[in-house]
């Protein structure tokens, strides 16, 4: 009994990637510049990544799965059990 068919997850991931890349292409193509005075929301604390928790999560998943990295350099440096 699997948690969820792998194919569904793959489709979800591909869809998310596709949607994001399309959005990026559209944005760079249109060059819709955000002006300095329009960055109040981007500057909010909750719009920043949480480096501390991300490092902890990366180490846990690196120890239990065959993948690592993505948010920068891969973790590493352990003979994990």
């Amino acid at each position, binding site marked *: 009994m699997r948690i*969820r068919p792998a194919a569904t997850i793959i489709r979800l991931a591909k869809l998310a990637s596709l949607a994001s890349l399309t959005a990026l292409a559209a944005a760079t193509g249109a060059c819709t510049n955000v002006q300095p005075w329009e960055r109040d929301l981007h500057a909010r604390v909750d719009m920043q990544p949480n480096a501390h928790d991300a490092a902890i999560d990366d180490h846990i998943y690196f120890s239990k799965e065959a993948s690592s990295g993505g948010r920068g350099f891969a973790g590493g440096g352990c003979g994990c059990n």
Partner: protein
Amino acid sequence: MQLKKKPIGGKLAAATCSLLGALPSTPVVAQEAGDWDIDTSLLYYGESDGRVTDVSLDASVRRAFDEDRALNFSLTVDSLTGATPNGAVPANTLQTFTGASGNNSYTAQPGELPLDPTFLDTRVALSGGWQQPIGENSRWNVGFSTSHEYDYLHLGVNTRYEHDFNLKNTTAYVGLAFAQDDIEPVGGAPIGLTPMLAERDDDDDDGDDFRGGGDQSKDVIDALIGVTQLLGRRDLIEVSYTYGQSDGYLTDPYKILSVVDPVTGVPVAGPVGGTPYLYLWEHRPDSRTKQTGFVEWRHAFDRDSLALSARYMTDDWGVDSQTVETRYRWNINERSYLEPHLRWYTQSAADFYRTVLFDGDQLPEYASADQRLADFDAYTVGAKYGRRTDYGEFSLRVEYYRQEGDPSPGSAVGDLAGFELLPPLTAYIVQFGYKFRL
């Protein structure tokens, strides 16, 4: 509110730069020059069925000297206890295994998944970095990382250059990391696909080369390229690509494979001087190339925010994986927030993954029964609650992780069909956090 005191440049930097980092830096927005920002946590990670438990203390320190100059350090101390699957499959008889040093042994009862209870480990990891501006629109980061366990030493350096374009709406970055790891397994590294030997009568527990392969090492190089793009006032996207090359000893020196009869599934007898049943040490290729694509989208609502990311990884071991992760930050009021978190993960098995080896078959060049190289799906569900006080921010994070593969893969012949060869792994993660400024 602290934001109002910040110069506009600080907001700019926060908006455009803070997604970047070997791991993302502590938010620029949360800092004033001359302050030390300290993020600490106590983490409990516990697997079910008496498997691995980890208690970890983490502290990250960052000091910003001005908008783009900053120093950061991070220290982690892990204490690991419990038992971990050794790679062998259950049997209808008692199974006896030799500890890595050769001076002890442990058993698995009939029907029980063999777990190696002989590890007890403390890991200390330290990393740091310096960010320096170069001209008006560029920054250069240099950093190091090191970690130590009784049988493992990691040393790494990394660097990254980032440049802002387009009124700081776009930031592109490139990075390079190099690591050298030394592995000094208890009893020496085993020779791949040779039998596990019987316990020896030796009082000298000095970790001599009982298993014949001595000390080992590996090198890892990662190259990173990416871009962060603002998509209007509320949205932000980051796309990155990482190429990783590992060379050297990539085998797990403590994992084995059972050798069973191809019809009955019963373990075959061990050789003279070996364990009662035959187990072979696993053996992996000595190089691995990984490619990872990552995309993250962040959206700010008037009060809350949402982050959604996807990652695709493929390597030359035959492992393909997909990860989708999302966090919703519900800012309940000015002082407290709740952040639900969901993560899905799936991976295919490495080409050389085997649940067992069959007696009489020609030995493969490489083989591993490590569950981490199997075909499985996993999910994480959890939430974090945080509350700001006059003394700093306190938080509590609770998460549940479950990993599940095919419990009886195709090689489940005879007796093995009655066992869970790949039992699910479940774990709880509880993290207390305290963040403050000096």
